[in-house]
């Protein structure tokens, strides 16, 4: 079984002729053996109220047992406690997602949210980037979330299950020691690129903290698979593609 911790559904302005509905994303992943999908709403990135975009993933979970909703929560909205409570009360929610780059807030301002997420025994993914800033629309440029801010949050909240999503290979190599040593800090593979890039992270001692993410439908599932499977033996690959996520997310 493969667990994808970083899939999406919904519209993304830069994509052309790419089906982004739940059924299409699910089909594109099942074609490559993904049997558990943690799915967040893409529309939340550009919404003034990301909470309004979450129903699509809750509805997807009602229809499909293999989908776990990953609602996006914005700590600058006064409704975040209620939105978090709703997430915690859902049978299939194991993780929420923050999009600080698109929400325009600093992670230092999310400490109250982090405390509550930890108390509710959920995980939280902080999305470093959705796509390469060099390819953003020139009137809609969103800088990456500094990975160091995620590391600092992990230090402030040592019992929190915190996943760095969308970090590059270079970023993860830079922060490998912190990912290795901070017990609650994990990282997704969805934007790790370069030859041997995942293998290098395994060699750096963080193979037990890496989680497979496809970033579908923005990126191609096959490409996400190749970066893990082409370079690693079965045992190391299975940890990244299933075991680590199963342990962290009770999946």
């Amino acid at each position, binding site marked *: 079984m493969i667990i994808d911790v970083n899939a999406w559904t919904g519209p993304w302005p830069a994509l052309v002729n790419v089906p982004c509905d739940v059924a299409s994303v699910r089909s594109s992943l099942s074609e490559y*053996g993904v049997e558990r999908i943690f799915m967040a709403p893409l529309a939340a990135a550009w919404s003034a109220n990301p909470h309004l975009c979450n129903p699509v993933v809750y509805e997807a979970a009602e229809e499909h047992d293999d989908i776990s909703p990953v609602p996006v929560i914005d700590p600058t909205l006064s409704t975040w406690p209620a939105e978090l409570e709703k997430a915690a009360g859902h049978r299939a929610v194991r993780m929420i997602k923050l999009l600080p780059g698109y929400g325009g807030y600093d992670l230092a301002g999310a400490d109250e949210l982090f405390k509550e997420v930890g108390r509710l025994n959920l995980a939280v993914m902080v999305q470093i980037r959705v796509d390469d800033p*060099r390819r953003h629309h020139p009137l809609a440029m969103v800088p990456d979330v500094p990975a160091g801010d995620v590391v600092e949050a992990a230090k402030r909240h040592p019992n929190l299950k915190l996943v760095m999503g969308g970090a590059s290979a270079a970023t993860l190599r830079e922060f490998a020691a912190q990912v290795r040593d901070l017990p609650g800090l994990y990282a997704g593979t969805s934007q790790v690129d370069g030859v041997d890039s995942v293998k290098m992270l395994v060699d750096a001692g963080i193979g037990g903290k890496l989680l497979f993410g496809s970033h579908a439908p923005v990126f*191609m599932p096959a490409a996400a698979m190749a970066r893990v499977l082409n370079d690693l033996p079965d045992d190391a690959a299975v940890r990244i593609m299933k075991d680590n996520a199963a342990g962290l997310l009770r999946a």
Partner: protein
Amino acid sequence: MTLASLRQKLLPDGPVLDIHVHPLNCFGSYGLSSPVEDAERLIAIACRSGVTRMCVFSLHETTPYEPTPDQCRFANDYVLRMRDAQPDAILPFCYVTPAFPDDAVAEIERCVGGQSMAGVKLWVARRATDPGLDPIMEAAVSLDVPVLQHAWLKSTGNLPGESTPYDVADLARRHPRARIIMAHLNGVGHRGIEAIADVPNVVVDTSGGDPESGMVEAAVNRLGAHRVVYGSDAPIRHFGVTMNKVLGAEIPDADKRVVLWDNALQILKLRE
């Protein structure tokens, strides 16, 4: 689906020629002792993703944006040593700078004419609209080899000498007999595809940027499969990640074979 069958699904069903590869020593610290070791390790890594042959060009180990002619010669000598160690797998390209056109032409004559390099590589020293490229293109046409020109469209701003796809189209119109490979499909995006659509002597390679869904399909649909060629930009990018942009694309299997192998043979005028 078993892990073994999934692994198989991510590999090509035939030979693959990667038209855009750099030595490991250009990017990252791999602790290499020689070009021979570089070639061995690069090929071993490529083989894991099913790449059988590759066009390799060095940008010099320090990757300067404005290389001197000496740095280009050093880079080319490095790649020639890689080729001599692994002649069946490595097809070297000659790296030159249009900032020194006379030196560039002499270097092309040395490397392509004298050492049978397979093509010419241009990076970011000058935009493709610069007249310094003209004698380089004439030399490439005379020696019957393609030119691979870097291109990107960065919303964060291109480097001063970094070509856009519009610059590449201008270059191709100035030199209609030249065979031009525009690098970085995922770096130039949909606007880049459109920029070269009516310039038949340009193909685009599949390298650059992330494995964004729909890009290979868009290129094949607009340009035709015969104008899209597999390139990885390894080691910056992963051979298998970029290859699976093609293998995972919603295009006919026959077109995938054209992109992964046939087109490169034709551009390079090679026989199987």
